[in-house]
């Protein structure tokens, strides 16, 4: 693959993530009996317009540390998406998988650090909520993803791993019912409360990229499940499947209300433990068969 194609593939997420978000908004609006972003251009580009507008606003810093963490969060999530694109081109390189998982966890950690670094009671509550949700799924997500990408397993185990990955991708994308860290009506946007202008734009852009990463991982694992991953054609399918996965996740969120902080993470943890238990049972069963 030449450098131009490589650059194009790695640039795709940075360009299309806000576009996918705009489409999600339009689809959600249709389901909710609203008009949503008006006109053809805005249906695809509204989130870009929003980001540009936010970037043009006055910069109000509550602390310099906060600004640094926000920029670092964007940096690490960007590195993660670049590694993901490289992995898509060269899925056989195992060190790329190791790097991907490492940077996935680092970018997740920066998201948490940003949440707790705000000196505001609403954002403190939001940060704790983000912790609960992340703790409930992050470990299961990364380990199931690593197994799925590195090892060839029987279909039953693959299915269980895919369930864990799919549920984790949904939860970590911060959509309803797991958007408790921001929960606008309850804690006035929680972890976002002190962000405005360019800082809010940077955080929003990070979230778009993060959602892209999760949607693409979910698309890839789906292909892996049905056994067509690892080829150039599969990479192309993954890229085409990503917006569909993104929209499906968005549509699911429309059907649900926000969970409660003392119910949601615990329920998630229980579901994850059940899936892991089933996986162990399946593994024992497979080992005995062999």
């Amino acid at each position: 693959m030449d450098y131009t194609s490589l650059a194009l593939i790695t640039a795709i997420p940075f360009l299309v993530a806000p576009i996918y978000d705009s489409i999600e908004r339009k689809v959600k609006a249709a389901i909710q009996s609203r008009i949503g972003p008006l006109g053809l251009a805005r249906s695809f580009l509204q989130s870009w317009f929003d980001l540009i507008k936010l970037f043009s606003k006055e910069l109000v810093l509550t602390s310099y540390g906060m600004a640094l963490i926000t920029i670092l969060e964007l940096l690490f999530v960007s590195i993660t998406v670049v590694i993901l694109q490289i992995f898509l081109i060269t899925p056989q390189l195992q060190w790329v998988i190791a790097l991907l998982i490492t940077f996935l966890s680092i970018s997740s950690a920066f998201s948490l650090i940003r949440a707790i670094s705000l000196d505001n009671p609403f954002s403190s509550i939001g940060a704790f909520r983000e912790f609960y949700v992340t703790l409930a799924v992050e470990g299961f997500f990364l380990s199931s993803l690593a197994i799925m990408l590195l090892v060839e397993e029987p279909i039953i185990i693959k299915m269980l791993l895919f369930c864990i990955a799919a549920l984790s991708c949904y939860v970590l994308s911060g959509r309803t019912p797991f958007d408790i860290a921001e929960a606008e009506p309850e804690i006035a946007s929680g972890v976002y409360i002190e962000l405005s202008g360019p800082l809010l734009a940077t955080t929003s852009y990070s979230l778009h990229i993060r959602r892209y990463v999760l949607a693409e991982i979910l698309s890839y694992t789906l292909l892996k499940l049905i056994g067509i991953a690892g080829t150039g054609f599969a990479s192309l399918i993954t890229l085409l499947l990503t917006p569909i996965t993104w929209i499906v996740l968005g549509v699911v969120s429309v059907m649900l209300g926000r969970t409660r902080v003392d119910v949601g993470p615990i329920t998630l943890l229980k579901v994850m433990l059940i899936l892991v238990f089933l996986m162990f049972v399946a593994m024992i069963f497979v080992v005995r068969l062999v």
Partner: protein
Amino acid sequence: MSMKDVVKEIEGKVVEFGGVVETITDTAVFVEIPKERVKEFAKWLYNAGAFLKTCAGVDERSINSRFAVYHIFGLDEKGIDVVLRISSLEGEALPSIANEVPAAEWCELEARDMLGLHILGHESKPRLVLPQDWPNAVYPLRKDVPYDYRPPSSVENFGKELPSEVGLPVGPYHPILHEPEYFELYVEGERVVDVFYRGFHVHRGIEKLAESPRFTYKTIPFLAERICGICGFVHSSCYVLTVERAAKIEVPERAQFIRSIVLEIERIHSHLLWLGVAAHILGYDAGFMHIWRIREPIMVLAELLTGSRKTYGINIVGGVRRDIDESKKKKALDVLRNVREEFKRFVEVFTSVPEIMKRATGTGVLPKDDARALSVVGPTARGSGLRRDVRKDYPYFAYRLASFKVPVYSEGDNLARLLVRVDEVFESISIVEQLLDALPRGSIAVESYEIPSFRKAVGAVEAPRGEDVHFIITGHGRPYRWRVRAPTYQNIPALKIMLRNTPLADAFLTIASIDPCFSCTDRAVVIRDVRSGFRRFASLFEGRRYANK
């Protein structure tokens, strides 16, 4: 027990307590009790099943050189009000009945703030109604204070009464509060352990304004309608009902039907609006959007019948200004049929969303005993097992001719209050259909009337949020005293009980579950200086950093 027997029993008790019966009307008994024995009499009334509707302080110095407090009790089961007057000379103390009847706390504090009455037991309590920068010894509802008096604002007074410990500030501006109000939630982890409340930020001086030369009996209905942007027609209806009772005006039956029809349309739109807000709070925005879509034809229907989507302006003393003809009737029935079907489908989906049911069940519980002690009203009362509905208990307008159920749930939680409102939408649609079908012929307003001075009357109308109470002492050309008690005023004190031990996430649903209308509740006096308001707000938000700048 017949009405006559009830009145006789009250008369007997009044004599026993050394008081006198001033007036007896079809709907109320006005009594005066010596202030030394008012606590005992209030306790007897309360134990006899009466709910305290409100109390009203009145500056009667131009009539009899005294200040008076009127405690308005309602014997719901008997359908009669007992208005208990106590009075004193300027500077003399008046007893509080808040220990015997907890619901009296707020209205007594309001009488203290607005009239400077010395009410025993309330001396050291912080201001309830007047803003912190209001000058001392200026009491806006005294007759010698001009209605357009504007005190100079003093920024230094802000912040003195706030607790030194900072909890989680909710308000004065917060996404959940659609009007400015201030709650401070004290939390342990994610559980609320205590609440501090400060309201009355949006006083507009409406009671005082109505007593000014700028208004007359005929123009006050339009002022009353502006008390609230959601249930304004309730206030104008309650005002005209009270004036008509005081002046003994016989309103044509057709006008009474039209008022009831419009009141029910207002209830439908208000409940649908609230359900949307509740869905939004619970993060279920699809529900929020769809219920507002279903509500839209109701707004169009209101416009068809009254000429306006809101603030209808059709109430006048003695009748209404706009008739309903056959074509409107037919269109209205079509709209209601469609709304009922759509709403039925919505409720099926809404109550099947697991997060909605889980978050509403068992949260924000208000036990029946507390609901009784605080005399809460409307869906808040009916969700806690109290069967209180002015339309049934004190039938007015055309409600005695309509057949409808009063939905009551005993759980006292957020879900109970939600289900009360859902059931009431269906009942209201049915009431409008019945009244449209039975709309009698005839005129829609009396041709002339006279309103004698110094007559007293109490009117109550069932608003979407509960009982709205107006008390009037008539004057020359305009009321001598007009007291408005909105339903939210009665329900807010219950939030302290409802919020304790509630998960923080559900605290906001709990606040919303009383369907608070701060615009109705606040009504009176002054708009706070924006800059000083910001300084106080910022100080709560870890504001040392900002303050230093």
